[in-house]
Protein backbone atom coordinates (compact mmCIF):
# COMPACT_ATOMS: atom_id res chain seq x y z
CA UNK A 1 0.00 0.00 0.00
CA UNK A 2 1.12 3.48 -0.72
CA UNK A 3 1.73 5.78 2.17
CA UNK A 4 -1.09 8.22 1.69
CA UNK A 5 0.56 10.99 3.65
CA UNK A 6 2.93 11.31 0.71
CA UNK A 7 0.11 11.87 -1.67
CA UNK A 8 0.69 14.91 -3.77
CA UNK A 9 -2.10 14.69 -6.26
CA UNK A 10 -2.66 16.42 -9.53
CA UNK A 11 -6.31 17.20 -10.22
CA UNK A 12 -7.19 17.24 -13.92
CA UNK A 13 -10.45 18.83 -15.07
CA UNK A 14 -12.04 18.50 -18.49
CA UNK A 15 -15.21 20.43 -19.39
CA UNK A 16 -14.61 20.74 -23.14
CA UNK A 17 -17.80 19.22 -24.51
CA UNK A 18 -20.96 17.40 -23.46
CA UNK A 19 -18.83 15.03 -21.41
CA UNK A 20 -17.11 16.50 -18.39
CA UNK A 21 -14.94 14.89 -15.76
CA UNK A 22 -11.90 14.80 -13.55
CA UNK A 23 -8.95 12.64 -12.61
CA UNK A 24 -6.81 12.50 -9.49
CA UNK A 25 -3.31 11.39 -10.37
CA UNK A 26 -0.15 10.87 -8.33
CA UNK A 27 2.34 10.41 -11.15
CA UNK A 28 2.26 6.64 -10.82
CA UNK A 29 -1.43 5.85 -10.76
CA UNK A 30 -4.74 7.41 -11.58
CA UNK A 31 -6.29 7.27 -8.11
CA UNK A 32 -9.78 8.35 -9.18
CA UNK A 33 -11.32 9.25 -12.51
CA UNK A 34 -14.77 9.93 -13.89
CA UNK A 35 -16.33 11.29 -17.05
CA UNK A 36 -20.04 11.84 -17.51
CA UNK A 37 -22.43 13.62 -19.85
CA UNK A 38 -23.51 16.67 -17.91
CA UNK A 39 -21.98 19.87 -19.20
CA UNK A 40 -25.08 21.92 -18.35
CA UNK A 41 -24.76 20.87 -14.73
CA UNK A 42 -21.00 21.38 -14.71
CA UNK A 43 -21.01 24.21 -12.20
CA UNK A 44 -23.29 22.31 -9.83
CA UNK A 45 -21.59 18.92 -10.09
CA UNK A 46 -17.92 18.96 -11.06
CA UNK A 47 -16.30 20.40 -7.93
CA UNK A 48 -18.76 18.45 -5.77
CA UNK A 49 -17.67 15.20 -7.46
CA UNK A 50 -14.00 16.05 -6.98
CA UNK A 51 -14.60 16.64 -3.26
CA UNK A 52 -16.44 13.32 -3.06
CA UNK A 53 -13.59 11.51 -4.79
CA UNK A 54 -11.08 12.98 -2.35
CA UNK A 55 -13.28 11.81 0.51
CA UNK A 56 -13.45 8.31 -0.97
CA UNK A 57 -9.65 8.25 -1.01
CA UNK A 58 -9.63 9.39 2.61
CA UNK A 59 -8.08 12.71 1.60
CA UNK A 60 -8.94 16.39 1.65
CA UNK A 61 -8.26 19.29 -0.70
CA UNK A 62 -4.91 19.71 1.03
CA UNK A 63 -3.68 16.61 -0.84
CA UNK A 64 -3.79 18.56 -4.10
CA UNK A 65 -0.33 19.57 -5.33
CA UNK A 66 -1.23 20.81 -8.81
CA UNK A 67 -4.24 21.39 -11.01
CA UNK A 68 -4.65 20.95 -14.75
CA UNK A 69 -7.44 21.99 -17.03
CA UNK A 70 -8.41 21.29 -20.64
CA UNK A 71 -8.11 24.53 -22.64
CA UNK A 72 -10.18 23.54 -25.66
CA UNK A 73 -11.23 23.63 -28.38
CA UNK A 74 -14.73 23.17 -27.03
CA UNK A 75 -17.75 25.00 -25.73
CA UNK A 76 -16.56 28.42 -24.53
CA UNK A 77 -18.79 28.57 -21.45
CA UNK A 78 -18.15 24.92 -20.72
CA UNK A 79 -14.39 25.43 -20.81
CA UNK A 80 -14.70 28.38 -18.42
CA UNK A 81 -16.39 26.16 -15.81
CA UNK A 82 -13.28 24.00 -15.58
CA UNK A 83 -11.00 27.00 -15.86
CA UNK A 84 -12.83 28.81 -13.04
CA UNK A 85 -12.56 25.82 -10.72
CA UNK A 86 -8.90 25.31 -11.62
CA UNK A 87 -8.06 28.97 -11.04
CA UNK A 88 -9.88 29.10 -7.70
CA UNK A 89 -8.08 25.98 -6.45
CA UNK A 90 -4.68 27.17 -7.69
CA UNK A 91 -5.21 30.55 -6.02
CA UNK A 92 -6.68 29.14 -2.83
CA UNK A 93 -4.13 26.36 -2.35
CA UNK A 94 -1.14 28.18 -3.85
CA UNK A 95 -0.44 25.31 -6.26
CA UNK A 96 0.70 25.37 -9.92
CA UNK A 97 -1.78 25.27 -12.79
CA UNK A 98 -1.32 23.88 -16.32
CA UNK A 99 -3.61 24.22 -19.32
CA UNK A 100 -3.56 21.27 -21.72
CA UNK A 101 -5.03 21.37 -25.25
CA UNK A 102 -8.14 19.19 -25.26
CA UNK A 103 -7.21 17.37 -28.47
CA UNK A 104 -3.70 16.52 -27.20
CA UNK A 105 -5.30 14.82 -24.21
CA UNK A 106 -7.84 13.13 -26.51
CA UNK A 107 -5.12 11.68 -28.73
CA UNK A 108 -2.70 10.74 -25.95
CA UNK A 109 -4.06 7.22 -25.19
CA UNK A 110 -3.80 6.31 -28.89
CA UNK A 111 -0.22 7.44 -29.47
CA UNK A 112 1.18 3.93 -29.11
CA UNK A 113 -0.75 2.65 -32.10
CA UNK A 114 0.98 2.80 -35.50
CA UNK A 115 -1.68 4.97 -37.19
CA UNK A 116 -2.17 8.68 -37.60
CA UNK A 117 -4.66 9.86 -34.97
CA UNK A 118 -7.67 12.03 -35.73
CA UNK A 119 -8.80 13.46 -32.37
CA UNK A 120 -12.22 15.06 -32.29
CA UNK A 121 -14.24 17.14 -29.87
CA UNK A 122 -17.92 17.93 -30.42
CA UNK A 123 -18.58 21.59 -31.25
CA UNK A 124 -22.37 21.40 -31.65
CA UNK A 125 -24.58 21.89 -34.73
CA UNK A 126 -23.16 18.78 -36.43
CA UNK A 127 -19.62 20.18 -36.29
CA UNK A 128 -16.49 18.92 -34.62
CA UNK A 129 -13.12 20.44 -33.87
CA UNK A 130 -10.41 18.01 -34.92
CA UNK A 131 -6.66 17.71 -35.32
CA UNK A 132 -4.52 14.97 -36.80
CA UNK A 133 -1.44 13.71 -34.99
CA UNK A 134 1.46 11.53 -36.13
CA UNK A 135 1.87 8.15 -34.41
CA UNK A 136 4.53 8.29 -31.72
CA UNK A 137 5.24 4.55 -31.30
CA UNK A 138 7.60 3.84 -28.44
CA UNK A 139 8.36 7.57 -28.11
CA UNK A 140 4.94 7.91 -26.54
CA UNK A 141 6.35 6.16 -23.48
CA UNK A 142 8.67 9.14 -22.99
CA UNK A 143 5.83 11.49 -23.75
CA UNK A 144 7.65 12.94 -26.74
CA UNK A 145 6.14 16.15 -28.08
CA UNK A 146 3.07 15.72 -30.23
CA UNK A 147 3.87 15.79 -33.93
CA UNK A 148 0.89 17.50 -35.50
CA UNK A 149 0.05 16.49 -39.05
CA UNK A 150 -2.87 18.86 -39.29
CA UNK A 151 -3.58 21.60 -36.73
CA UNK A 152 -7.05 22.19 -35.30
CA UNK A 153 -9.87 22.76 -37.78
CA UNK A 154 -13.64 22.62 -37.59
CA UNK A 155 -15.74 20.52 -39.88
CA UNK A 156 -18.79 18.39 -40.49
CA UNK A 157 -18.29 14.60 -40.58
CA UNK A 158 -18.20 14.77 -44.39
CA UNK A 159 -15.52 17.46 -44.30
CA UNK A 160 -13.48 15.54 -41.76
CA UNK A 161 -13.79 12.38 -43.85
CA UNK A 162 -12.56 14.27 -46.91
CA UNK A 163 -9.53 15.50 -44.95
CA UNK A 164 -8.71 11.94 -43.84
CA UNK A 165 -8.31 10.69 -47.43
CA UNK A 166 -4.75 12.03 -47.30
CA UNK A 167 -3.82 9.49 -44.60
CA UNK A 168 -3.65 5.79 -45.45
CA UNK A 169 -3.79 4.64 -41.82
CA UNK A 170 -5.76 6.74 -39.42
CA UNK A 171 -7.63 6.01 -36.20
CA UNK A 172 -10.47 8.15 -34.88
CA UNK A 173 -10.84 9.09 -31.22
CA UNK A 174 -12.74 11.47 -28.97
CA UNK A 175 -16.38 12.57 -29.29
CA UNK A 176 -17.33 10.19 -32.09
CA UNK A 177 -21.05 9.77 -31.38
CA UNK A 178 -23.02 11.00 -34.37
CA UNK A 179 -19.94 11.47 -36.55
CA UNK A 180 -18.78 7.97 -37.52
CA UNK A 181 -21.17 7.26 -40.41
CA UNK A 182 -20.52 10.62 -42.05
CA UNK A 183 -16.76 10.25 -41.78
CA UNK A 184 -16.80 6.66 -43.00
CA UNK A 185 -18.86 7.62 -46.05
CA UNK A 186 -15.94 9.75 -47.25
CA UNK A 187 -13.11 7.78 -45.61
CA UNK A 188 -14.05 4.05 -45.37
CA UNK A 189 -10.47 3.22 -44.36
CA UNK A 190 -10.60 5.17 -41.10
CA UNK A 191 -10.23 2.89 -38.07
CA UNK A 192 -13.03 3.32 -35.55
CA UNK A 193 -12.44 1.94 -32.06
CA UNK A 194 -15.40 0.35 -30.20
CA UNK A 195 -17.65 2.94 -28.50
CA UNK A 196 -16.26 2.01 -25.10
CA UNK A 197 -13.00 3.63 -26.13
CA UNK A 198 -14.58 6.85 -27.42
CA UNK A 199 -14.47 10.07 -25.49
CA UNK A 200 -11.65 11.53 -23.45
CA UNK A 201 -9.80 10.29 -20.41
CA UNK A 202 -9.03 12.91 -17.76
CA UNK A 203 -6.27 10.55 -16.64
CA UNK A 204 -4.49 11.19 -19.96
CA UNK A 205 -4.86 14.93 -19.40
CA UNK A 206 -3.43 14.50 -15.92
CA UNK A 207 -0.45 12.59 -17.27
CA UNK A 208 0.41 15.28 -19.83
CA UNK A 209 0.09 17.99 -17.17
CA UNK A 210 2.09 16.05 -14.60
CA UNK A 211 5.12 15.89 -16.88
CA UNK A 212 4.88 19.58 -17.71
CA UNK A 213 4.61 20.66 -14.09
CA UNK A 214 7.42 18.29 -13.11
CA UNK A 215 9.60 20.19 -15.59
CA UNK A 216 8.61 23.51 -14.04
CA UNK A 217 6.49 24.34 -17.07
CA UNK A 218 3.38 25.60 -15.30
CA UNK A 219 1.06 28.27 -16.77
CA UNK A 220 0.42 31.81 -15.61
CA UNK A 221 -2.55 31.66 -13.26
CA UNK A 222 -3.80 35.10 -14.32
CA UNK A 223 -3.52 34.89 -18.09
CA UNK A 224 -4.56 31.27 -18.64
CA UNK A 225 -7.72 31.17 -20.74
CA UNK A 226 -9.54 28.81 -23.10
CA UNK A 227 -8.55 28.50 -26.73
CA UNK A 228 -11.22 30.45 -28.58
CA UNK A 229 -11.66 28.92 -32.02
CA UNK A 230 -14.51 30.10 -34.19
CA UNK A 231 -17.10 27.43 -34.72
CA UNK A 232 -18.69 29.06 -37.75
CA UNK A 233 -17.47 30.53 -40.98
CA UNK A 234 -14.25 29.34 -42.54
CA UNK A 235 -13.19 26.24 -40.61
Amino acid at each position, binding site marked *: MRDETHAGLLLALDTSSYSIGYALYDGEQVRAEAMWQGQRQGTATLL*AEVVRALEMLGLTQDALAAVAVATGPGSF*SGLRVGM*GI*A*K*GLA*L*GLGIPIAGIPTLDATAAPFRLCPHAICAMVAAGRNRWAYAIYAPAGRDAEQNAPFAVLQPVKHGTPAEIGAALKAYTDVVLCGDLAGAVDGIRAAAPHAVVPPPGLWGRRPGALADLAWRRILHGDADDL*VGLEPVYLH*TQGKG
Partner: protein
Amino acid sequence: MVDILAIESSCDETAAAIITDGRRVRASIIASQNDLHARYGGVVPELASRRHITEIVPVVRAALDADNRTLDDVDAIAVTMGPGLAGSLLVGVNVAKSLACARALPLIGVNHLEGHLYANWLLPQGASDAPEPQFPAVGLIVSGGHTSLVLMTGHGTYRLLGGTLDDAAGEAFDKGARLLGLGYPGGPAISRAAQDGDPTRYPFVRSRTENALDFSFSGIKTAMLRAVQPYRLPQTDAATTGPDGGSFVLHRPAHLRDDAPVHDLAAAYEDAIVRMLVAPVAQAVREHRAVSVLLAGGVAANMRLRESLATAVDVPLFCPPPVYCTDNAAMIGAAAFYRMRAGEFAGVGLDVYPSLRLV
Protein backbone atom coordinates in the same frame (compact mmCIF):
# COMPACT_ATOMS: atom_id res chain seq x y z
CA MET B 1 -15.90 40.40 13.70
CA VAL B 2 -16.71 38.61 10.49
CA ASP B 3 -14.64 39.36 7.39
CA ILE B 4 -16.20 38.26 4.13
CA LEU B 5 -14.43 38.06 0.78
CA ALA B 6 -17.13 38.80 -1.78
CA ILE B 7 -17.01 38.18 -5.54
CA GLU B 8 -19.31 39.63 -8.20
CA SER B 9 -19.28 38.77 -11.93
CA SER B 10 -22.93 38.81 -12.98
CA CYS B 11 -22.61 41.17 -15.91
CA ASP B 12 -19.71 43.26 -17.16
CA GLU B 13 -17.83 44.17 -13.99
CA THR B 14 -15.38 41.78 -12.34
CA ALA B 15 -15.34 42.75 -8.67
CA ALA B 16 -14.06 41.58 -5.30
CA ALA B 17 -14.35 43.16 -1.85
CA ILE B 18 -13.57 42.56 1.80
CA ILE B 19 -16.44 43.53 4.11
CA THR B 20 -16.43 43.46 7.91
CA ASP B 21 -19.69 42.73 9.74
CA GLY B 22 -21.75 43.53 6.66
CA ARG B 23 -21.13 47.26 6.81
CA ARG B 24 -17.49 48.25 6.79
CA VAL B 25 -15.76 48.24 3.38
CA ARG B 26 -12.12 47.19 3.87
CA ALA B 27 -11.44 46.91 0.16
CA SER B 28 -13.51 47.08 -2.99
CA ILE B 29 -11.97 46.44 -6.39
CA ILE B 30 -13.93 46.75 -9.63
CA ALA B 31 -12.53 45.96 -13.07
CA SER B 32 -14.97 47.62 -15.41
CA GLN B 33 -15.47 46.49 -19.00
CA ASN B 34 -17.25 49.64 -20.15
CA ASP B 35 -14.51 50.39 -22.70
CA LEU B 36 -14.95 46.91 -24.18
CA HIS B 37 -18.72 47.04 -24.69
CA ALA B 38 -19.23 50.74 -25.44
CA ARG B 39 -18.63 50.29 -29.17
CA TYR B 40 -21.43 47.70 -29.35
CA GLY B 41 -23.84 49.94 -27.43
CA GLY B 42 -24.44 47.22 -24.84
CA VAL B 43 -22.89 44.25 -23.10
CA VAL B 44 -21.75 41.43 -25.43
CA PRO B 45 -22.05 38.33 -23.19
CA GLU B 46 -19.23 36.28 -24.72
CA LEU B 47 -16.79 39.20 -24.51
CA ALA B 48 -17.80 39.81 -20.89
CA SER B 49 -17.16 36.17 -19.95
CA ARG B 50 -13.75 36.21 -21.61
CA ARG B 51 -12.75 39.27 -19.64
CA HIS B 52 -14.00 37.75 -16.36
CA ILE B 53 -11.86 34.62 -16.67
CA THR B 54 -8.64 36.66 -16.95
CA GLU B 55 -9.63 39.46 -14.52
CA ILE B 56 -10.93 37.34 -11.67
CA VAL B 57 -7.60 36.31 -10.10
CA PRO B 58 -5.95 39.78 -10.20
CA VAL B 59 -9.14 41.38 -8.86
CA VAL B 60 -9.36 38.97 -5.89
CA ARG B 61 -5.65 39.42 -5.21
CA ALA B 62 -6.00 43.21 -5.38
CA ALA B 63 -8.85 43.17 -2.85
CA LEU B 64 -6.75 41.11 -0.42
CA ASP B 65 -3.67 43.26 -1.02
CA ALA B 66 -5.58 46.51 -0.57
CA ASP B 67 -6.42 45.44 2.97
CA ASN B 68 -3.03 43.79 3.66
CA ARG B 69 -4.68 40.42 3.98
CA THR B 70 -4.21 36.88 2.83
CA LEU B 71 -6.91 34.25 2.48
CA ASP B 72 -5.95 33.17 6.03
CA ASP B 73 -7.60 36.34 7.33
CA VAL B 74 -10.95 35.70 5.68
CA ASP B 75 -13.91 34.10 7.52
CA ALA B 76 -16.23 33.37 4.61
CA ILE B 77 -16.56 33.65 0.84
CA ALA B 78 -19.62 35.22 -0.81
CA VAL B 79 -20.54 35.24 -4.46
CA THR B 80 -23.32 36.47 -6.74
CA MET B 81 -25.27 33.41 -7.92
CA GLY B 82 -27.83 35.34 -10.03
CA PRO B 83 -29.60 36.94 -11.72
CA GLY B 84 -27.29 37.85 -14.58
CA LEU B 85 -25.55 36.48 -17.65
CA ALA B 86 -25.02 32.72 -17.22
CA GLY B 87 -21.55 32.78 -18.79
CA SER B 88 -20.45 35.66 -16.58
CA LEU B 89 -21.97 34.31 -13.38
CA LEU B 90 -20.30 30.93 -13.73
CA VAL B 91 -16.82 32.43 -13.62
CA GLY B 92 -17.41 34.05 -10.23
CA VAL B 93 -19.35 31.10 -8.81
CA ASN B 94 -16.78 28.46 -9.79
CA VAL B 95 -13.85 30.52 -8.56
CA ALA B 96 -15.62 31.35 -5.29
CA LYS B 97 -16.64 27.75 -4.68
CA SER B 98 -13.16 26.40 -5.26
CA LEU B 99 -11.62 29.15 -3.10
CA ALA B 100 -14.02 28.22 -0.31
CA CYS B 101 -13.21 24.54 -0.84
CA ALA B 102 -9.45 25.19 -0.91
CA ARG B 103 -9.53 27.13 2.37
CA ALA B 104 -12.36 25.12 4.00
CA LEU B 105 -14.37 28.33 4.39
CA PRO B 106 -18.15 28.75 4.52
CA LEU B 107 -19.73 29.89 1.25
CA ILE B 108 -22.71 32.21 0.81
CA GLY B 109 -24.59 32.54 -2.49
CA VAL B 110 -26.05 36.02 -2.91
CA ASN B 111 -28.91 37.32 -5.01
CA HIS B 112 -27.52 40.24 -7.01
CA LEU B 113 -30.72 42.29 -6.53
CA GLU B 114 -30.56 41.80 -2.78
CA GLY B 115 -26.94 42.93 -3.03
CA HIS B 116 -28.02 46.21 -4.63
CA LEU B 117 -30.43 46.87 -1.75
CA TYR B 118 -27.75 46.07 0.83
CA ALA B 119 -25.42 48.69 -0.66
CA ASN B 120 -27.51 50.91 1.64
CA TRP B 121 -26.03 49.17 4.70
CA LEU B 122 -22.44 49.96 3.71
CA LEU B 123 -20.81 52.66 5.83
CA PRO B 124 -19.56 55.72 3.97
CA GLN B 125 -15.79 55.84 3.52
CA GLY B 126 -14.13 56.87 6.79
CA ALA B 127 -17.32 56.73 8.90
CA SER B 128 -17.17 54.50 11.99
CA ASP B 129 -20.95 54.36 12.27
CA ALA B 130 -24.07 55.63 10.55
CA PRO B 131 -27.78 55.01 10.97
CA GLU B 132 -28.94 51.85 9.22
CA PRO B 133 -32.20 51.43 7.33
CA GLN B 134 -35.21 50.48 9.47
CA PHE B 135 -38.10 48.20 8.48
CA PRO B 136 -40.53 48.24 6.84
CA ALA B 137 -38.60 49.80 3.99
CA VAL B 138 -39.62 50.47 0.41
CA GLY B 139 -36.83 49.63 -2.01
CA LEU B 140 -36.53 50.83 -5.59
CA ILE B 141 -34.03 48.79 -7.63
CA VAL B 142 -33.25 50.58 -10.89
CA SER B 143 -30.52 49.51 -13.27
CA GLY B 144 -29.83 48.54 -16.87
CA GLY B 145 -31.46 45.18 -16.31
CA HIS B 146 -33.97 45.75 -13.52
CA THR B 147 -36.72 48.04 -12.34
CA SER B 148 -38.45 46.66 -9.25
CA LEU B 149 -40.32 48.17 -6.35
CA VAL B 150 -40.18 45.99 -3.23
CA LEU B 151 -41.32 46.09 0.37
CA MET B 152 -38.69 44.86 2.79
CA THR B 153 -40.13 43.85 6.15
CA GLY B 154 -36.92 42.44 7.62
CA HIS B 155 -33.51 41.12 6.59
CA GLY B 156 -34.06 38.86 3.61
CA THR B 157 -37.87 39.27 3.63
CA TYR B 158 -39.36 40.88 0.54
CA ARG B 159 -42.68 41.51 -1.16
CA LEU B 160 -42.81 42.59 -4.77
CA LEU B 161 -44.95 45.72 -5.15
CA GLY B 162 -44.28 46.59 -8.77
CA GLY B 163 -42.02 46.13 -11.74
CA THR B 164 -41.49 47.32 -15.26
CA LEU B 165 -43.87 46.23 -17.99
CA ASP B 166 -41.32 46.79 -20.75
CA ASP B 167 -37.80 48.20 -20.51
CA ALA B 168 -35.70 48.61 -17.40
CA ALA B 169 -35.07 52.24 -16.44
CA GLY B 170 -31.41 51.98 -17.42
CA GLU B 171 -32.36 50.59 -20.83
CA ALA B 172 -34.77 53.49 -21.32
CA PHE B 173 -31.86 55.86 -20.67
CA ASP B 174 -29.63 53.94 -23.10
CA LYS B 175 -32.24 54.02 -25.86
CA GLY B 176 -32.96 57.71 -25.30
CA ALA B 177 -29.25 58.50 -25.41
CA ARG B 178 -28.86 56.61 -28.67
CA LEU B 179 -31.75 58.53 -30.25
CA LEU B 180 -30.13 61.80 -29.16
CA GLY B 181 -26.74 60.84 -30.54
CA LEU B 182 -25.21 60.64 -27.06
CA GLY B 183 -22.83 57.99 -25.70
CA TYR B 184 -23.15 54.72 -23.81
CA PRO B 185 -23.99 54.13 -20.98
CA GLY B 186 -26.97 56.39 -21.56
CA GLY B 187 -27.89 57.49 -18.02
CA PRO B 188 -24.82 59.59 -17.28
CA ALA B 189 -24.77 60.88 -20.88
CA ILE B 190 -28.38 62.08 -20.66
CA SER B 191 -27.77 63.64 -17.24
CA ARG B 192 -24.80 65.61 -18.56
CA ALA B 193 -26.70 66.82 -21.60
CA ALA B 194 -29.74 67.67 -19.47
CA GLN B 195 -27.76 70.06 -17.30
CA ASP B 196 -28.23 73.03 -19.64
CA GLY B 197 -31.64 71.94 -20.85
CA ASP B 198 -35.16 73.15 -20.22
CA PRO B 199 -37.30 70.14 -19.24
CA THR B 200 -40.56 72.01 -19.86
CA ARG B 201 -40.11 72.65 -23.58
CA TYR B 202 -40.98 69.05 -24.52
CA PRO B 203 -43.33 67.66 -21.89
CA PHE B 204 -43.23 63.87 -22.28
CA VAL B 205 -46.43 62.35 -20.99
CA ARG B 206 -45.91 59.41 -18.66
CA SER B 207 -47.61 56.16 -19.56
CA ARG B 208 -50.29 54.94 -17.19
CA THR B 209 -50.10 51.38 -15.90
CA GLU B 210 -52.97 49.31 -14.55
CA ASN B 211 -51.16 48.77 -11.24
CA ALA B 212 -50.10 52.25 -10.10
CA LEU B 213 -46.90 50.73 -8.66
CA ASP B 214 -45.73 49.34 -12.02
CA PHE B 215 -43.53 51.15 -14.51
CA SER B 216 -43.62 51.53 -18.28
CA PHE B 217 -41.10 53.40 -20.38
CA SER B 218 -42.24 52.53 -23.90
CA GLY B 219 -44.44 55.66 -24.17
CA ILE B 220 -41.69 58.19 -23.58
CA LYS B 221 -39.33 56.24 -25.81
CA THR B 222 -41.81 56.61 -28.67
CA ALA B 223 -42.30 60.28 -27.82
CA MET B 224 -38.53 60.80 -28.00
CA LEU B 225 -38.37 59.02 -31.33
CA ARG B 226 -41.03 61.37 -32.70
CA ALA B 227 -39.36 64.44 -31.25
CA VAL B 228 -35.97 63.75 -32.87
CA GLN B 229 -37.37 62.56 -36.22
CA PRO B 230 -37.31 65.99 -37.92
CA TYR B 231 -33.62 66.42 -37.01
CA ARG B 232 -32.27 63.02 -38.07
CA LEU B 233 -29.53 62.74 -40.68
CA PRO B 234 -29.22 59.57 -42.81
CA GLN B 235 -26.73 56.94 -41.65
CA THR B 236 -25.92 53.29 -42.11
CA ASP B 237 -25.40 50.67 -39.45
CA ALA B 238 -22.21 48.68 -39.92
CA ALA B 239 -22.17 45.05 -38.93
CA THR B 240 -18.96 43.52 -37.72
CA THR B 241 -17.92 39.98 -37.01
CA GLY B 242 -18.08 39.10 -33.37
CA PRO B 243 -16.02 36.69 -31.32
CA ASP B 244 -18.45 33.83 -31.86
CA GLY B 245 -18.41 34.19 -35.61
CA GLY B 246 -21.82 35.86 -35.32
CA SER B 247 -22.27 39.48 -36.27
CA PHE B 248 -22.84 42.41 -33.98
CA VAL B 249 -24.14 45.78 -34.99
CA LEU B 250 -21.61 48.34 -33.87
CA HIS B 251 -23.05 51.07 -31.71
CA ARG B 252 -23.56 54.13 -33.88
CA PRO B 253 -25.40 56.89 -32.04
CA ALA B 254 -27.87 58.73 -34.25
CA HIS B 255 -26.62 61.71 -36.21
CA LEU B 256 -28.76 64.78 -35.63
CA ARG B 257 -28.73 68.18 -37.26
CA ASP B 258 -26.84 70.89 -35.38
CA ASP B 259 -30.04 72.75 -34.53
CA ALA B 260 -31.55 69.69 -32.74
CA PRO B 261 -32.62 70.73 -29.21
CA VAL B 262 -30.55 67.94 -27.63
CA HIS B 263 -30.23 69.54 -24.21
CA ASP B 264 -33.92 70.33 -23.84
CA LEU B 265 -34.93 66.88 -25.04
CA ALA B 266 -32.46 65.21 -22.67
CA ALA B 267 -33.78 67.29 -19.78
CA ALA B 268 -37.39 66.46 -20.63
CA TYR B 269 -36.62 62.75 -21.04
CA GLU B 270 -34.74 62.51 -17.77
CA ASP B 271 -37.47 64.47 -16.01
CA ALA B 272 -40.13 62.11 -17.36
CA ILE B 273 -38.24 58.99 -16.22
CA VAL B 274 -37.57 60.47 -12.79
CA ARG B 275 -41.22 61.40 -12.29
CA MET B 276 -42.26 57.94 -13.41
CA LEU B 277 -39.99 56.36 -10.83
CA VAL B 278 -40.79 58.69 -7.94
CA ALA B 279 -44.60 58.55 -7.93
CA PRO B 280 -44.93 54.79 -7.21
CA VAL B 281 -42.31 55.01 -4.45
CA ALA B 282 -44.19 57.81 -2.71
CA GLN B 283 -47.44 55.89 -3.01
CA ALA B 284 -45.87 52.67 -1.69
CA VAL B 285 -44.45 54.50 1.33
CA ARG B 286 -47.92 55.82 2.20
CA GLU B 287 -49.73 52.54 1.58
CA HIS B 288 -47.31 50.41 3.59
CA ARG B 289 -46.35 52.94 6.24
CA ALA B 290 -42.71 52.43 5.38
CA VAL B 291 -40.15 54.08 7.68
CA SER B 292 -37.29 54.14 5.16
CA VAL B 293 -36.75 54.23 1.42
CA LEU B 294 -33.84 52.39 -0.19
CA LEU B 295 -32.63 53.45 -3.60
CA ALA B 296 -30.48 50.84 -5.36
CA GLY B 297 -28.91 49.95 -8.70
CA GLY B 298 -26.94 51.88 -11.31
CA VAL B 299 -29.69 54.40 -12.00
CA ALA B 300 -29.67 55.25 -8.28
CA ALA B 301 -26.55 57.29 -9.05
CA ASN B 302 -28.80 59.76 -10.91
CA MET B 303 -28.74 63.01 -8.91
CA ARG B 304 -32.11 64.28 -10.14
CA LEU B 305 -33.72 61.02 -9.06
CA ARG B 306 -32.18 61.35 -5.59
CA GLU B 307 -33.25 64.98 -5.18
CA SER B 308 -36.72 64.31 -6.46
CA LEU B 309 -37.23 61.29 -4.18
CA ALA B 310 -35.92 63.19 -1.16
CA THR B 311 -38.60 65.83 -1.56
CA ALA B 312 -41.36 63.35 -2.42
CA VAL B 313 -41.07 61.14 0.67
CA ASP B 314 -40.98 62.24 4.31
CA VAL B 315 -39.12 59.21 5.71
CA PRO B 316 -35.32 58.78 5.63
CA LEU B 317 -34.06 58.13 2.10
CA PHE B 318 -30.99 55.92 1.74
CA CYS B 319 -28.84 56.20 -1.40
CA PRO B 320 -25.52 54.40 -1.66
CA PRO B 321 -22.52 56.44 -2.79
CA PRO B 322 -22.44 56.31 -6.63
CA VAL B 323 -19.56 53.78 -6.65
CA TYR B 324 -21.78 51.28 -4.76
CA CYS B 325 -24.81 51.94 -6.98
CA THR B 326 -23.33 50.30 -10.05
CA ASP B 327 -22.26 46.66 -9.83
CA ASN B 328 -19.68 45.98 -7.12
CA ALA B 329 -18.74 43.23 -4.70
CA ALA B 330 -18.99 45.30 -1.50
CA MET B 331 -22.79 45.12 -1.67
CA ILE B 332 -22.57 41.34 -2.14
CA GLY B 333 -20.47 41.10 1.04
CA ALA B 334 -23.04 43.21 2.90
CA ALA B 335 -25.98 41.04 1.86
CA ALA B 336 -23.97 37.89 2.55
CA PHE B 337 -23.34 38.94 6.15
CA TYR B 338 -27.06 39.03 6.94
CA ARG B 339 -27.68 35.70 5.17
CA MET B 340 -24.78 34.22 7.14
CA ARG B 341 -26.21 35.58 10.38
CA ALA B 342 -29.44 33.78 9.52
CA GLY B 343 -27.47 30.55 9.05
CA GLU B 344 -27.94 30.38 5.29
CA PHE B 345 -24.92 28.82 3.60
CA ALA B 346 -24.37 27.37 0.15
CA GLY B 347 -22.73 24.03 -0.53
CA VAL B 348 -20.16 22.90 -3.04
CA GLY B 349 -23.10 22.19 -5.37
CA LEU B 350 -24.01 25.88 -5.71
CA ASP B 351 -25.08 26.62 -9.29
CA VAL B 352 -25.68 29.81 -11.26
CA TYR B 353 -29.25 31.12 -11.49
CA PRO B 354 -29.42 33.52 -14.47
CA SER B 355 -33.09 34.42 -13.98
CA LEU B 356 -33.17 34.39 -10.19
CA ARG B 357 -35.82 36.69 -8.72
CA LEU B 358 -35.78 38.56 -5.45
CA VAL B 359 -39.32 37.39 -4.63
